[in-house]
């Protein structure tokens, strides 16, 4: 029998009365470029922590090639999956949702078993996002898996909270920047519609472009030169692009600082105000929870990593944050 664990206190917010919260679920997308950095672990645990705090949550496994969020949540064989939506066997996103063993937490499983096209085409992606926005939940968390394909980046850009998970390793950091670059340029491409401007953006995405555009600031100057109005739109789009960072597998106090460093590099390189949402320390209990196929915050709520994950979940649900205030880690 599972140990009865008291729910974390439900935030004493006026969430039920809040029009922002009442209108539609908050969409949280978790990516990060590299595989194996703990995206699925983070999604499963943030979702479980939010559910345990009393928030209705749906998690969505949009991982292209390695869907296993259902396993992390102890759901053996999901009744319906995103594959049914991709294959057009099911159009109602609400019917893809399966229950989990955790109260308040439900799942749209990934496309495991479908070796064909793993992602819906752009038009169906759009409708999928609309379907997710109609789910009866307060939070919808999407596990994007590895890579920075356009489909994944679209989910990231559509989210209220776009979170990049990285670990204190050069390969992970490099891929995280790769993901952020892809998201940054795609945002600009989506916002700026003039053919001449789009052509420059497409060229800038190649780091060795002949125009000598090396940084987003160079690109901004080029766009400004083509059309001052487009330049202003560029600046406005940069200001709205606010990715969040979670550093996973932290082993020393020094490694915690990676989040500050990446945040600073985002400012200096992209001109983007990233938010350092939090960190999760390396904890043997995490591996035990993966083996047990249960979220750590449910299996071992007192463990160090659980406490850090719950702290991040509290930030995601913070009423101030839902109204646009940052909740950075203090330096």
């Amino acid at each position, binding site marked *: 029998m599972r140990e009865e664990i008291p729910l974390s206190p439900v935030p004493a917010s006026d969430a039920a009365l809040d029009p922002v919260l009442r209108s539609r679920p908050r969409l949280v997308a978790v990516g990060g470029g590299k595989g194996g950095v703990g995206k699925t672990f983070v999604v499963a645990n943030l979702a479980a922590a939010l559910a345990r705090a009393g928030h209705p949550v749906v998690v969505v496994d949009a991982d292209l090639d390695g869907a296993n969020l259902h396993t992390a949540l102890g759901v053996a064989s999901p009744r319906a999956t995103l594959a049914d939506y991709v294959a057009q066997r099911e159009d109602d996103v609400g019917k893809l949702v399966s229950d989990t063993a955790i109260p308040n937490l439900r799942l749209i499983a990934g496309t495991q078993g479908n070796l064909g096209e793993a992602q819906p085409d752009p038009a169906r992606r759009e409708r999928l996002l609309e379907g997710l926005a109609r789910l009866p939940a307060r939070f919808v968390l999407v596990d994007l898996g590895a890579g920075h394909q356009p489909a994944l980046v679209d989910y990231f850009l559509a989210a209220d909270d776009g979170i990049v998970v990285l670990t204190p390793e050069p390969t992970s950091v490099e891929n995280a920047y790769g993901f952020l670059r892809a998201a940054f340029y795609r945002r600009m491409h989506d916002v700026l519609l003039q053919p001449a401007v789009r052509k420059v953006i497409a060229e800038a995405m190649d780091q060795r472009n002949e125009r000598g555009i090396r940084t987003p600031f160079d690109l901004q100057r080029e766009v400004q030169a083509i059309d001052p109005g487009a330049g202003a739109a560029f600046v406005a789009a940069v200001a709205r692009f606010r990715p969040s960072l979670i550093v996973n597998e932290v082993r020393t106090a020094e490694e915690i600082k*990676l989040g*500050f*460093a990446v945040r*600073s590099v985002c400012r*200096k390189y992209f001109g983007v105000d990233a938010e350092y949402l939090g960190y999760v*320390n390396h904890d043997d209990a995490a591996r035990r929870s993966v083996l047990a196929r249960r979220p750590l915050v449910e299996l071992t709520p007192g463990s160090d990593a659980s406490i850090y994950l719950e702290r991040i979940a509290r930030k995601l649900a913070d009423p101030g944050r839902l109204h646009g205030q940052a909740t950075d880690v*203090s*330096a």
Partner: protein
Amino acid sequence: MRPLAEQDHYEVLEVPREASFEDVERAYRVAQAAYAEDSVALYSVFGGEDAQALRDRIELAWSVLSDVERRRAYDAMLSQGGTPPAAAPVALRERFRDGGFEEEARPIAITMEPAKPPPPPARYEKPPLRPLAAPVLEPVDAHEDVSSGELDGAALRRARQRRGLELEQIANVTKISPMYLRYLEDERFEDLPAAVYVRGFVVSYLRCCGIDPATALPSFMARYEAVRAAGRSGRTAGRLPGRV
């Protein structure tokens, strides 16, 4: 958001203009680590020259903002609509020798400062980092674990890690042996000295982490006393190994 060449010293260190000395110092430490040559966060985005230009700007910003007089003059220049020099990093780097700036580097700074800046020292020396001032750190995030008044060793460790501090840094400031600090975190109360000393250790530790000892100390000492009392009664009853 502006490119580096157009940023003022505050933007370079990512602090507001009203930042206290401690805020500036903390931001400088973060920037130093972020843009160090071996920084994991840096190499895949900024190439060698760009990274060096960043380091130069960070050092220049710190040299001005950490000096009360120079900062005052710089603020006055900014308030009069002065602009930072676009070419400073490269020109500065050319005069960067032995870890210090040659006095000839000053013309770059002059464009950033009033017409009659205070006479500079003969040679700029990088100001040493102040030792960590114990009670000044901001307490907001550090209080998360202790807001309920409950404090244990693990919460101490988390508070320290959130401040980005290693045990040795706390030991340097408090002059308490890192061994005892570790025992506090591990709650090895039986290996710690008498309560009067432990109380002092915990107060110093908490202050380093920006936590008000008045809130957090009692619950930690209660844990200490309870364990020590259990140990005493155990010994009295002769239950400890070797005493049967």
